[in-house]
Structures are given as structure tokens and as C-alpha cells.
């Protein structure tokens, strides 16, 4: 049993290294396939990163009338904070709002003069609400609108909620990101499938050149498993070498992109992602290489083992 396994391993290794041009061609094709699979991994990471980035920027602000009591506002803040869909609620008092307004218009003397003419603070307090998922804003807004306690002498203390202004933009943005993500992944997946088919065809061609050899092995009384084994081993060696080459190609490119194009990629640092997910990425590439080489060889030899 062990002897048989060792012979298959040794035989496969020798076959691979004596294969010459055929082995080289197989490795090149498999490398291309793995590079495409690697791009698929990074593209999907980039897209979900961008999506998270944009979702993170989306929030809803509730503006209160200047007449609203601070206690009522803080009360609402506490209630909102306890909602499971709410990630955070930031309170801005009317004084802070005024301060921010003044800072923002520091160079606009006309506006500041007008503000001074008013005498009192015309700005109300506000709550900036951030949800875990953009789709939850609607229900949060509904929750606030239906809250009867936000009434002061029959008049709502809420001046306005900017969700209604942003709603359309938020929805369109979310849809656009989802569509881009899907389209991008489909395109790369199509390339990946195409290159996997090409890789399988290449392995098949490589083994086609061994068909007479397989016939001879059968005639000298080798079992099908014993014939198949070395081919699968050679395929797996090809896959492992291809994934190593892919990693060697990826590392400097990702480093370069991370160092120079992080801001261009909306803050996505490819190299940080690479080092942060090193084990997973190596696992995915080497695993794909092994499966690609092994399965392709298995399928290719099977044809010639049918009686």
C-alpha cells in the first residue's frame, strides 16, 4: 500500500520534470487561470470594501425645532440607541450647531451679520443616526415619525428629517454599487470559467500525448488506479508550481498598488488586504491549483482507461 503510494508519488514527480515543454505549457496556462482567479478575489474584496465605505458615509439626520427641550431630544437619542438596527446616534446641541455654522461661514461676513441681527440662536439641535444597513433607515424614520412623545403642545418638535431628501440618492447609490459588484464578478467569473476550461483542455492535450503510454501500462498489467496516480500527482505538482508563480507575480504588483494607488481605489490598500488575508489567499490559490491540476488530469486520463 505504502510502496504503491510512494511509487505513484515518485513516478508522478519524474513524469512532471521529464515532461519538458508539455509541463511548461501546462504550468503557464494554469498560472494564467490562477491569476484570473486571484483578480476575482481582489476585485470582490475591492467592491465589498467600496460598498462598505459608501454605506458608512450614509446617515440620517433629524433636525429639531429650536423650541425642542434638550431632555426630549436626549430621550429620543437613548430610545434610538437601543434599536437593534441602529449603529450609533450622535447628538448635536443647538449651541454646537450655531458654533459649527459660525465656523463654516467664518469668511461670510454678511451671513454672520444677519445671524447677529436675529439675536437668539435660530438653529435647533439635531441627531445624526447611523444604521448598520442602509435598508434599515426607512424603518428608523418611521419609528421617529410615529413617536407621539415628540410633541410639544400639539406641535412636533421635529423640524425635518433629511432622509426624505437623501432617500432617492441613497437608494440609487446602493443599487448602483450592487449592480457594479454583480457585473464585475460575473465578468471575472466568466473569464475564470473560460480559463479553467482552457487549462483542462491543455492538461488533456498533455495526457493525449501519453495515450499510447497508458495503453502500454494497461498491457503490462497495471491497474487503472496505478496508471492514473502519477498523472494526477504530476497535475497537482503543476498546480502547486503555478500557484507559487502566481503569488510571486501578485506580491510586487499588490505592493505597488497598495503604495501608490490606495487613495485612487477609495482607500482600499491592496497590499494590506493581501498581508491581512495571506493565509486565505494562499489557501485559495494553492487549493485552486491543486484541484485544477488534479481534477483535469483525472478527467483526462479517465478517457484512456475505459476498456
Amino acid at each position, binding site marked *: 500500500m505504502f*510502496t504503491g503510494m510512494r511509487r505513484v508519488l515518485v513516478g508522478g514527480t519524474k513524469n512532471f520534470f*521529464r515532461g519538458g515543454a508539455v509541463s511548461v505549457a501546462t504550468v503557464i496556462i494554469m498560472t494564467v487561470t490562477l491569476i484570473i482567479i486571484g483578480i476575482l478575489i481582489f476585485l470582490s474584496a475591492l467592491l465589498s470594501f467600496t460598498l462598505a465605505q459608501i454605506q458608512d458615509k450614509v446617515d440620517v439626520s433629524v433636525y429639531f425645532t429650536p423650541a425642542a427641550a434638550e431632555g426630549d431630544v436626549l430621550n429620543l437619542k437613548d430610545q434610538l440607541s437601543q434599536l437593534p438596527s441602529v449603529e450609533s446616534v450622535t447628538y448635536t446641541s443647538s449651541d454646537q450647531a450655531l458654533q459649527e455654522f459660525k465656523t463654516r461661514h467664518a469668511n461670510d461676513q454678511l451671513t454672520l451679520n444677519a445671524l447677529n441681527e436675529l439675536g437668539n440662536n435660530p438653529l435647533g439641535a439635531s441627531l445624526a443616526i447611523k444604521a448598520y444597513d442602509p435598508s434599515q433607515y426607512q424603518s428608523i424614520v418611521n419609528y421617529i415619525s410615529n413617536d407621539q412623545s415628540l410633541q410639544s403642545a400639539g406641535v412636533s418638535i421635529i423640524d425635518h428629517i433629511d432622509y426624505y431628501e437623501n432617500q432617492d440618492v441613497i437608494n440609487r447609490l446602493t443599487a448602483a454599487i450592487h449592480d457594479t459588484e454583480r457585473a464585475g464578478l460575473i465578468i471575472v467569473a466568466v473569464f475564470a470559467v473560460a480559463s479553467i476550461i482552457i487549462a483542462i483542455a491543455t492538461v488533456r492535450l498533455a495526457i493525449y500525448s501519453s495515450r499510447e503510454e497508458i495503453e502500454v501500462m494497461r498491457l503490462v*498489467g497495471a*491497474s487503472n488506479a496505478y496508471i492514473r496516480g502519477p498523472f494526477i500527482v504530476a497535475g497537482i505538482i503543476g498546480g502547486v508550481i503555478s500557484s507559487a508563480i502566481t503569488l510571486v507575480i501578485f506580491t510586487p504588483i499588490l505592493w505597488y498598488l497598495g503604495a501608490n494607488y490606495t487613495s485612487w481605489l477609495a482607500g482600499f490598500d491592496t497590499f494590506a488586504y493581501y498581508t491581512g488575508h495571506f493565509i486565505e489567499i494562499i489557501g485559495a490559490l494553492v487549493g485552486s491549483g491543486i484541484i485544477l491540476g488534479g481534477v483535469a488530469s483525472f478527467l483526462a486520463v479517465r478517457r484512456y482507461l475505459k476498456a
Partner: protein
Amino acid sequence: MIYFDNVSKIYRDGTPALEDITIAIQPKEFVSIVGHSGAGKTTLLKMLLAQERPTAGSVFFQDIDVHALAASAVHFYRRKMGMVFQDFRLIPNKTAYENIAFAMEAAGRPDDEIESDVPYILNLVDLGSKANHFPNQLSGGEQQRVAIGRAIINQPDVIIADEPTGNLDPINTYEVIEILKKINELGTTVLITTHNKGVVDAMGKRVITMDRGRVIRDDQQGHYIL
């Protein structure tokens, strides 16, 4: 030992390759099958190797009905016979040593036996010094001797040689036939097909003559007569 019982083979397009062949071969016989190309010699051997199925009749080897074997048992059956072909059929990316060792490895023989038997056989076929040569570094005669080494390494009950001298010059032909005769004298049944009149006539052994899928002569001390 080998018995063809009313074997017929008709190919799918209706061409008959063998018609009603009945041949019995005894242990330790040296049998030459002669005939023109297309007479059915190779088809007959393929039947025995379980490479092709007869349309009618059966083939027995010892007490095995060859075509009743399960597909998973065929490789065990083939280890009982050694095969030699006109085109040598060595494995191109294995050395002479490895080609012979492969037959032993495939049969699951232990390493120490392989290490002692293969050099012995290589010397027997006079290739001791070329053990590490690949087939494309060997002459035709040398390749055929490797193939014979491979065929006899597992001490088969029968050697089946399909035109073993077809691609060889007269000197190599003589050497190959001498080796086959020696193997036969040591007790192995040998079954060869050939076109070579000189080989058959010099042998003075049993000759089966085939023509268009039929056995037309079967002489115990035959000559190549066509």
C-alpha cells in the same frame, strides 16, 4: 493452456476479421502464426489479451474464460502474460531500467526484488550497460530487447510477441529470436506472429498459417508456406 473455441470476429462495418478459429496451444510450445497482413493474426492476439471481444466463440487461458473477466480483473490477468510488439511500445519518458521495473511495480512487487531482478534481466538481454538510457537513445534492436526484458520480468506463463522482428535488421532479428527461443527452452510458452520466412523456417517449430481470417494450415514442424 490456450484454447480458442470457434472464435469469430466481425467488425461493426460487417468486415469479418476471424472466422471459426479453433486452436489449442499446449504449455511450453513455441508457436508461430504466419500469414499476410490482414489475415487476422493480430486480432487473434488481441482476443487473448482481452483487448477485443469475439463476436462468437470464447477464448480460454488455463481455466480462465478471458472474455468473462470483470473489467477490474483484466489487469491481474494480463500479468500472467508478457507482451512484445513490433513497435516496441516502451514508455518514452522512462529509462530502460524503469521500463522493465514498471512492469514489476505495476504488479506490486517489493523494492528489493525489483532491485535484484531488473539488473539480472538487463544483463540477460545484454543491456546491462544501457540501463539509464531512454528509449530514444537506444537502437531498434536494443529497444526490442528492453521490451522483451519487460515481458519476461514477471515470469509470465506465456510470451506473446506480435511481429517482434518486423522493424529489425537481420542481425537484431536473429538476436531477438535467440532470446525468445531461450525463454521457451526455460519453460515459457511463446506465441509469435511474423512475416519473416527465415525466422519461421529456421525454427522448426509449430506453425499456424492464417489467411483471410481462417486457419489454413497447422503444422507441428512447419515452414512458412503461402
